[in-house]
């Protein structure tokens, strides 16, 4: 029977994958728009950690050349670190952009609940297309009465 060895790298990989999965779960299942943004932050953090871990070598040192360093010393891969350095900054930009979009949603619809936003959005689309609103996707029992009530 194959068993997974408990080393520092395996614990860190477990943490990175778990963090990504927690963020993905939050983005899929939660209903508050602001909390979905927080889940996006978690997903970004997990992806960054996974990228940095892909460049880690056993017994490696930081990829910085100092004066007394011998030639054959093992370094971590600096390319994923540079990539993650950029990705962190871009992640903060994405947070700011998403927050601006949430401000607009709050101003237009007056709520942050995803289901209420979807209901109002479908109502707006139906009014602009001059057809009856089909009702919310997440409340199928209301489908018949809403279609029967409208016109």
């Amino acid at each position, binding site marked *: 029977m194959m068993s997974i060895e408990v080393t520092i790298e395996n614990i860190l990989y477990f943490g990175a994958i778990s963090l990504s999965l927690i963020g993905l779960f939050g983005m899929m299942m939660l209903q508050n728009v602001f909390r979905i943004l927080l889940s996006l932050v978690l997903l970004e953090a997990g992806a960054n950690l996974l990228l940095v871990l892909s460049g880690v070598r056993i017994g490696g040192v930081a990829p910085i050349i100092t004066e007394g360093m011998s030639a054959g010393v093992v370094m971590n891969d600096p390319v994923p670190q540079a990539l993650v350095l950029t990705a962190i900054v871009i992640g903060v930009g994405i947070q*700011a952009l998403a927050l601006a979009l949430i401000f607009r949603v709050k101003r237009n619809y007056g709520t942050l609940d995803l289901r209420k936003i979807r209901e109002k959005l479908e109502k707006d689309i139906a009014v602009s297309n001059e057809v009856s609103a089909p009702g919310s996707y997440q409340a199928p029992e209301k489908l018949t009465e809403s279609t029967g009530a409208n016109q």
Partner: protein
Amino acid sequence: MIWVVALIVCIMLVAAVMVLFVPNMIAAVVATSVVSLALTAIFAIVKAPDVAMTEAAIGAGLGSLILALGLKRLGFNQTGGSQGEEND
């Protein structure tokens, strides 16, 4: 060493679950900051000091500042509730 890493990963995962399910919104933002700080410690442990510096300054500092100011502008009352059930 391995116990330090395991403890930091445990703190990070508990804070991540707390982000999703704590009812208070400002506590969720603080938990996001805790996740970023644990991530900073992990980056320092795996010998990536430049990434750790950037994550501490921009990910934990500026990101949490942006989220907290945005939450202040959105209003604490409207964003309360564990899943946004009791809004409005």
